[in-house]
């Protein structure tokens, strides 16, 4: 039955599948719209949520045998996950529609800053056009030294503009952490003082300067070796940080379990379910 989700073998089969899917989807939506009122639609959402969660949960908990381990649901995991990925991919169109709506209105009504929205359209169209053009040039690999001009423009847009912008924005973090650390770290309590000491030890332990500061201490074979900044820093990360991270992970995992149960059993309020039943 899982072979139902195998890709179509021929173009003819693909067209038939697409046409059938569109007709079936249209009829299903029409039937749901006509036959189900708001209450019925709510219960449909509850049912789909429950069955969806049950499928993945049951596949994991149901006894499995063999190596690799399988149960009667395992062969369905891959096609169902692929199906969900395809559905998710369609929503890219929704995102583009939303952006076009918002920025389109700014440009058409000449609102303040409309030139930014115009720049957005220029960048989006340019990237789209030249990326697709470059792809369909189907240049041989490795790329020859002389390339057609669309490939050149694509390289400028992607490697020359987009990638350096990404790297530059990430680099801003260094400046922001310097100003945020200077502004926020005040030793107002004993705990803050402890935190500051730990921060200094780890910061200095991470860099060669810190190792140089305590280089006079022996490296091995002496209790004093522990006080070398790089070893002290590693000790803080392994013996103080690790248990704390584990504790936080346990708490978050339990919280996520409870939240998952609430969503699976449709107990969560305020997100998908209106206050009136």
């Amino acid at each position, binding site marked *: 039955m899982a072979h139902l989700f195998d890709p179509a073998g021929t173009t003819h089969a693909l067209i038939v599948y697409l046409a059938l899917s569109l007709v079936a989807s249209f009829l299903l939506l029409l039937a749901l719209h006509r036959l189900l009122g708001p209450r019925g639609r709510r219960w449909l959402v509850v049912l789909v949520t429950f069955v969806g969660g049950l499928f993945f949960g049951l596949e994991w908990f149901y006894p499995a045998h063999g190596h690799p381990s399988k149960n009667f649901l395992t062969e369905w995991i891959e096609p169902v996950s692929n199906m969900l990925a395809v559905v998710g991919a369609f929503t*890219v*169109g929704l995102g583009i529609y*939303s952006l076009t709506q*918002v920025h389109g209105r700014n440009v058409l009504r000449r609102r303040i800053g409309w030139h930014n929205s115009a720049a957005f359209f220029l960048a989006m169209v340019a990237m789209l056009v030249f990326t697709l053009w470059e792809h369909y040039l189907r240049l041989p690999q490795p790329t020859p030294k002389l390339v057609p001009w669309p490939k050149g423009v694509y390289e400028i847009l992607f490697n020359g503009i987009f990638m350096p912008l990404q790297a530059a924005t*990430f680099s801003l973090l260094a400046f922001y952490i310097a100003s945020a650390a200077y502004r*926020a770290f005040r030793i107002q309590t004993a705990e803050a003082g402890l935190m500051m000491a730990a921060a200094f030890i780890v910061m200095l332990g991470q860099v060669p300067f810190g190792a140089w500061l305590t280089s006079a201490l022996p490296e091995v074979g002496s209790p004093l070796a522990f006080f070398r900044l790089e070893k002290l820093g590693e000790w803080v990360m392994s013996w103080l940080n690790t248990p704390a991270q584990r504790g936080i992970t346990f708490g978050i995992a339990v919280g996520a379990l409870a939240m998952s149960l*609430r969503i699976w059993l449709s107990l969560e309020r305020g997100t998908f379910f209106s206050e009136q039943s």
Partner: protein
Amino acid sequence: MGGSLEHANWFMTVLFCAMSAVIVASVVLAQRGRAMFIRPIPGLAAIDEAVGRATEMGRPMFFSTGLHGITIVTLQALAILAHIVRLAAAHATRLIVATASSTLLPVAEESVREAYAAAGRPESYRADDVRFVSDDQFAYALGSIGIMARDRTATNFFFGSFFAEALVLTENGRALGALQVAGCPDPTQIPFFIATCDYVVIGDEYYAASAYLTREPTLTGSLVGQDIVKAAIILLVLVGAAIATYLGAADAGAHNPLLKLLAQGG
């Protein structure tokens, strides 16, 4: 040594069923009217103050759902968003929502529209105020900063999954003079939020948000159930550590059945 993680072994199944049973039992007890205590969570209590500030200043608010699409973390963010929308509707304060996932966009739109309707102000909903910015991390951050700067937001909320762009967002928000409330279950970005935001919701306080804000018995019961489960885990850790220490001291050897049970859970 070690079992397959492709499927649950008996130990995980028993543990999961026990934890779920405790949580569900706690929910049932709460629904039957049992009073349950939740300690104050400053970050969530500050939401009212934050909305009030924007109302007094006559400026809009900004809400960021973080980077991911439809995940547990983002769904919790939407629950918090719904609460903020109800407050905003009551005070006639504008709220701009920026998402980084096109999958999340229709869900966020529906959530906001329903919250305005529940607050009795369906006409206050503006489609343009729930936007998809970009799914690229830093493009999203810079686009959001542009929204904060151009619309001069008085209050910024950051709830969801955040990564390196968190500091870029919040430091700029602070420089623009906004009051900022953030919450993220992932501990990696918490230090940056603490340095730049006025209030921060940490770790599993984040998952307590919907219970804390609505005080609904179902959600409160779930929260108390979580705490009971956490207490049980702490007890298991202590017992396991004691047994492992004893076995280590007694030089029990790799084939000791108790040691194998501790190591792999079955």
